[in-house]
């Protein structure tokens, strides 16, 4: 039964991917990518990766798609040009790479085989011990924030870097006051009412995902993205200039940096109290308590940075769109 669902989902993935190759209408391609992302998120649920599914749906199908649409709005080139000559070299490279990978899979343990080495070494400790060592039910959250917490710090730094990069390239600087064009949707009453009703619910959901991440799927990344999505919805409906009155670029900048800083400082705190970097055991009076506190704080740091960066990136794009519209007029 499960296999059938798998096959249907993989079939959908294949169809979407091939359609992306064939299509030339960029708008349709972006939408297809969004579908691809959403279908793979469903696939992840079926493969028991609920946390990953939540993230993929929010990030891939949500934020990435919004950014791609923003780019399309600025480039205004909806058709891809036909290539001049047959792509023989790329086909050759892809064929060789694909063949190497298929060759590589031949000796791999079979799909879902519980005896595979991957399930015998390292991972069992997480499953068996995390309940007592960390004391939270969500094993993924335990590994993410504690066992491999340093990876997550690096990843938060990547997010911060991305925010920095988009700020550098597109910049929210200058001429903000002249732009009143940000609220083209404002006069649509239905949108306004629904938007007003949805935004608080989304924020509530973001908080739920943030703080429920230890018990069920969720955590700082997912929560940050959902919170950013709430503000993005608000700024689509009410205009991004209004949204910027609620969270000014200045505050966003501070939030972007302070999340990473908080994460790193929790680690430094572990060092100061005599443990290793990111050792949460020493933070509390007993190890599991320290772990709780540490995970809570780092997840908060992740959430703050991710929310701020995603929103900042969106604002950068939106401001650019508005500038271009004004220049076009």
């Amino acid at each position, binding site marked *: 039964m499960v296999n059938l669902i798998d096959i249907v989902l993989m079939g959908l993935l294949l169809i979407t991917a091939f359609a992306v190759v064939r299509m030339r209408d960029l708008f349709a391609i972006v939408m297809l990518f969004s579908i691809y992302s959403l279908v793979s998120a469903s696939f992840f649920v079926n493969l028991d990766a609920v946390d990953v599914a939540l993230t993929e749906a929010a990030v891939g199908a949500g934020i990435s798609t919004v950014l791609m649409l923003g780019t399309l709005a600025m480039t205004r080139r909806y058709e891809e040009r036909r290539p001049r000559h047959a792509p023989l070299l790329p086909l050759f490279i892809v064929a060789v790479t694909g063949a190497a990978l298929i060759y590589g899979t031949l000796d791999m343990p079979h799909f879902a085989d519980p005896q595979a080495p991957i399930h015998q070494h390292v991972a069992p400790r997480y499953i068996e011990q995390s309940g007592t060592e960390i004391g939270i039910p969500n094993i993924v959250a335990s590994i993410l924030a504690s066992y491999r917490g340093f990876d997550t710090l690096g990843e938060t730094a990547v997010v911060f870097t991305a925010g920095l990069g988009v700020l550098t390239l597109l910049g929210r600087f200058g001429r903000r006051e002249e732009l009143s064009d940000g609220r083209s*949707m404002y006069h649509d009453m*239905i*949108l306004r009412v*629904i938007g007003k*009703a949805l935004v608080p619910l989304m924020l509530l959901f973001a908080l739920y995902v943030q703080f429920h991440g230890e018990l069920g799927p969720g955590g700082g990344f997912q929560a940050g993205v959902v919170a950013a999505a709430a503000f993005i919805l608000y700024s689509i409906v009410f205009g991004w200039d209004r949204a910027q009155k609620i969270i000014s670029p200045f505050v966003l900048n501070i939030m972007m940096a302070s999340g990473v800083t908080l994460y790193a400082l929790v680690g430094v705190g572990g060092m100061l109290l005599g443990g290793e970097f990111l050792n949460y055991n020493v933070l509390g009076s007993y190890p599991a308590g320290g772990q709780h506190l540490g995970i809570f704080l780092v997840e908060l740091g992740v959430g703050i940075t991710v929310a701020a960066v995603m929103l900042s990136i969106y604002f950068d794009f939106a401001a650019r769109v508005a500038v271009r519209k004004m220049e076009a007029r």
Partner: protein
Amino acid sequence: MISVILDILSWICLMGGSFLGISGAVGLFRFPDFFTRIHASGVTDTMCTVLIIGGLMLQAESWQMLAKLLMILLLLTYTSPTSAHSLAKSAIRGGLRPTLGSGD
């Protein structure tokens, strides 16, 4: 006994929902212009989600799951018509006009 009736009811809901979903998709492909297409998908979509989620609710094992499904249902009944509406509105503002009549 009860469970059999619930099962049958839920399957009727699920099948009905699926039928509506597919007919909406067919409409999306076969109808002549943007507005009729969005009409096709927008109208069937709402009922389709109501039926499918209703069918799933009949299968729910716990109150918690029931409550979650209810919330999803509420969310979708709000958002899916709104998105259809705003799509249509943007199309109008973008200069797209419905193809009216055919014989004149």
